[in-house]
């Protein structure tokens, strides 16, 4: 069933891609840099490809949801990202959407389960 595993794999990636922005925005309430974010997400079992995460951060900055600053405090320069005001707004709304979505899907699952029984 190799084809099935591949299919499942790519569908799972799609699923995770969908929630990645939400996850990133929630972490960015405190200043984060690329690698720290990667670690935080991995620790929460949200395995994300670095090649997807880093460009996403730039995009969110361009969209005005994150603000970025190069810090020279430490031994090497790092770019730190933080939620902006509009970022906070969007994050809260997105979180609501996510919760509603979750609820609706759970209901759908239950209904189809009941249908099977």
């Amino acid at each position, binding site marked *: 069933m190799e084809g099935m595993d591949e299919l499942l794999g790519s569908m799972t990636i799609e699923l995770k891609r969908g929630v990645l922005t939400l996850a990133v925005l929630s972490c960015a309430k405190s200043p984060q840099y*690329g690698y720290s974010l990667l670690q935080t997400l991995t620790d929460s079992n949200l395995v994300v490809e670095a*090649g997807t995460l880093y*460009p996403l951060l730039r*995009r969110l900055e361009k969209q005005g949801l994150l603000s970025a600053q190069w810090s020279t405090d430490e031994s090497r320069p790092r*770019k730190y990202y933080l939620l902006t005001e509009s970022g906070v707004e969007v994050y809260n709304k997105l979180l609501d959407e996510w919760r509603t979505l979750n609820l609706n899907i759970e209901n759908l699952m239950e209904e189809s389960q009941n249908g099977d029984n």
Partner: protein
Amino acid sequence: MEIIDRYIYAVTKYLPSNTRADVAKELRSNIEDMLPDGYSLDDAKKALTSLGDPSKLASEYSGKRHFLIGPDYFDKYLHVLITLVPIIGFVSLVVSAVNNSSWNGTIIDILTNGLIPALSGAFTSIINTSFFVTLFFVIVERMHHIHEWSVDSLPTIPDTEMKRISIAEPILAISFSTVVAYIICFKSQIIAIYTSVAPETMQRLPFLNEARITHYTPVIIILTVLIIAIGIWQIITRKWTLPLAAANCASGVMNTAFIIWFLSDSSIYNHFNNTQFLSLMDKRSVIVAVIIVVAMIGLIKSSLAGFKSASR
């Protein structure tokens, strides 16, 4: 480490210059975060491999649509290309052959002087056509947001297979009429008897009188343009409608009438004192009659087909 520099260069190579430096700086800091202190070449290689193909990373960073012609227009583009290329190829093949060949010399000379320029002429025309069609669609792709899709703009279905006009018919008609018109109007000399006067040289005795033909040229051009226009109409709508069938019939009638008128004018024919030539000229009336009958049969057939399909 050099390999890291090379990776960063590969990612940022094609990025716009204003973001390149910042992306490079950030990427370097991210990569170094992924590596332990005092990392080895192997550590670096592993980290870079986990980042993935630099060109994929680059396209994520640039985030632009990366098509020359996108999925919206690609099918239409292919369709136009496939329709135009045979027409242009065929027409320019004949035009080049007729223009470039010097009809003196041996058979070998005629072949090489005729065939090779013909093929290269056709090839050049096909390349040119393909380029401009592609350019057109590249531009349309970038401007397509101007034209939003709506349900009202859906094309009508060709009702039944009966009404449908095959794409080959109009392509053939356009190619053939263009070539014939071109030859008659501008290169009528090639319709000739070819005899060898001396070893290795050929003489050409054209049937038609060029000077006399120039009287007919404007009419021929107008009739050919009409044929092309009707052909294009057929290609675009792909189905027989009453107006189209009527126009097609009218064009056919005019073409046949013209053929009769043209071929009956005895002054368009040349006269040479060559036995081969004269014997063919004697049979002229038979040949003309055959041409006219064929034209009429074609006219009746295509008009009937058109009207029959249109009225279903």
